[in-house]
């Protein structure tokens, strides 16, 4: 089939890149010009895992990986919100406090007041939404930099959390309740986990195959069946291998599945909806987005609200994980871990560039460091230093890649 006939391959200046070799060449070309995607974080993860595994063989054991992923799920959800807010080029420094406040609200409403748990969860999430709305109001109405408003929010919301918890300072959530089970002992039945992995691979193949067919019908270049099948097989095999490995431990935590579902959902929203397009446009060039008729304020509002809502969901999940709502919830490194995860995963601090999967990859890196150092019995002082260094490296990679994109015309 002659490439010359394709509408989007007609220009003679295009390097023709057909087949698997072409796809690999195009990928290398992209990487060289600074369009790194998830490559740095995957390489980083491999290095981190090799180092810790060589220092302590428990590190890559199924049970440790299960725990690691279990712990990743809570802050990972918070980090999804950070992806949203970074995409529009703003920041929320208060996600830790918001998550802690949400868990306190959940504890007070559910345990102390006796409201049904699902209503308490909804209330906690709504409270997060209100906080996000307030940041958006300050930003849109007064042009208050999000850096400042959310820093103020960090303190104010932490104050609310402490106020809610009052004297006792900590509320234990009832063991055996569905929410606490989700956080501690609910695993996907092995057969179902394998089935989900296979379904994910199939869905991926079906979607890309349909797109390719439509493109071919429209006389546009499309990926060949080999590549589609190959990629779907690789991904399915990786997923099934992961399921197999986790099943040798306690299994696939249901909470991880919840997190992954949210990742896929956010990825869809960011890449396949008008809203996601608008979010990227606002993060890339606010004035151009406004002139294209996009309601820029509404987009900022949606990002602030989503960020706080994800933080609240993360807070509910972490209280389930800990079976308590305490004054410590959401304090310490939750904030910075969530922000660092998104950036380490490859979402740019400069706005307009990133994806939902960066929260997943980034939080696994952070939890891997934390888990590895705990296994080595090293104090948290070292953990902070290493996480800080990784974050710095991620930001340097981000800045360098941006510079390279500018010089290669891909900014």
């Amino acid at each position: 089939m002659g490439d010359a006939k394709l509408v989007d391959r007609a220009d003679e200046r295009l390097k023709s890149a057909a087949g698997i070799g072409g796809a690999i060449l195009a990928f290398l070309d992209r990487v060289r010009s600074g369009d790194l995607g998830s490559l740095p974080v995957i390489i980083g993860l491999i290095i981190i895992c090799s180092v810790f595994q060589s220092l302590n063989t428990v590190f890559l054991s199924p049970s440790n990986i299960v725990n690691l992923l279990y712990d990743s799920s809570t802050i990972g959800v918070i980090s999804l919100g950070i992806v949203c807010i970074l995409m529009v080029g703003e920041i929320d420094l208060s996600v830790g406090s918001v998550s802690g406040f949400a868990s306190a609200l959940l504890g007070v409403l559910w345990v102390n007041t006796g409201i049904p748990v699902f209503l308490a969860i909804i209330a906690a999430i709504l409270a997060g939404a209100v906080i996000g709305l307030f940041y958006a109001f300050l930003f849109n109405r007064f042009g208050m930099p999000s850096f400042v408003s959310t820093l103020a929010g960090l303190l104010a919301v932490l104050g609310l959390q402490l106020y809610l918890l009052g004297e006792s300072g900590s509320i234990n959530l009832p063991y055996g309740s569905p929410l606490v089970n989700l956080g501690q002992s609910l695993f996907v039945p092995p057969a179902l986990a394998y089935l989900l992995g296979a379904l994910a691979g199939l869905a991926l193949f079906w979607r890309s195959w349909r797109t390719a067919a439509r493109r071919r019908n429209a006389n546009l270049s499309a990926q060949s069946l080999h590549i589609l099948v190959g990629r779907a097989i690789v991904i399915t095999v990786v997923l099934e291998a992961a399921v197999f490995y986790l099943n040798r431990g306690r299994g696939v935590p249901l909470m991880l599945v919840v997190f992954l579902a949210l990742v896929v959902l956010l990825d869809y929203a960011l890449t396949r909806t008008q809203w996601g397009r608008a979010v990227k446009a606002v993060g890339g060039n606010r004035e151009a987005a406004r002139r294209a008729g996009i309601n820029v304020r509404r987009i900022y509002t949606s990002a602030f609200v989503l960020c706080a809502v994800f933080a609240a969901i993360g807070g509910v999940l972490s209280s389930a994980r800990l079976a308590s709502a305490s004054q410590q919830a959401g304090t310490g490194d939750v904030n910075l871990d969530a922000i660092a995860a998104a950036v380490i995963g490859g979402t740019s601090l400069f706005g307009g560039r990133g994806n939902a999967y960066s929260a997943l990859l980034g939080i696994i890196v952070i939890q891997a460091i934390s888990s590895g150092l705990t296994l080595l019995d090293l104090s948290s002082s070292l953990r902070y230093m290493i996480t800080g260094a990784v974050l710095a490296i991620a930001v340097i990679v981000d800045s360098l890649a941006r510079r390279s994109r500018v010089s290669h015309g891909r900014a």
Partner: protein
Amino acid sequence: MTAQGTPVLSLHGISKHFGAVSALTDIELDVHAGEVVALVGDNGAGKSTLVKILAGVHAPSAGRIAFQGREVTLPDPAAALSLGIATVFQDLALCENLDVVANIFLGRELSPYALDEVAMEIKAWTLLQELSARIPSLRETVASLSGGQRQTVAIARSLLLEPKLILLDEPTAALGVAQTAEVLDLIERVRDRGLGVLMISHNMEDVRAVADRIVVLRLGRNNGIFYPDASNHELVSAITGAGENAVSRRAARRSTRDSSLGETA
């Protein structure tokens, strides 16, 4: 060719102040359907400011805007777009982090909840082919395009909407010879489809080639309306202010030299 009936666009007493600076004072302007109006003036005359007011980017300080006979306000760009006013800005206003297709369809994506990338790409190719654009790939980000290619993308964007009035702020400034001709052809085609066109250009040849009327702005005020048959001298003196100026002095030097050359020959 002067169209009749109510104008698509009609401005009365439009003024715009930026702090102490009066960028525009009491501007009157009509654009009819099926008419190309050229807006000319020196740098800083207020042309882009006027375009931005009509695009809903700036709010006017005073004055009335009527669109298709009805008085309208243009509080934001979305309002102007939904009325059917499409604009190619001088500073283009594209998102560099998005690809060409995404930029052309920005804010008007097909099927908002499950973006139809294939249909959008096909439509984008069609639009760009109409403009004889030389853009190798529509899936590269706009950052990788040259100035002229970006200009074409911006023009394609404005056509997508099927507007009633198109505002073009120096649309050919970054274009090569062939593409300039292509854009001028396009302006004529758009006019023949019955759209109103307001075009800003510094190139008198281009202006004369397509404009039905030429409106001159000078220091933020109306300074005369001309037709394409007006002499260069008339236009230039309206643009720069009547009487002696750099352009007329050059022209005078030139003609005396030409005539003295003629005498010696």
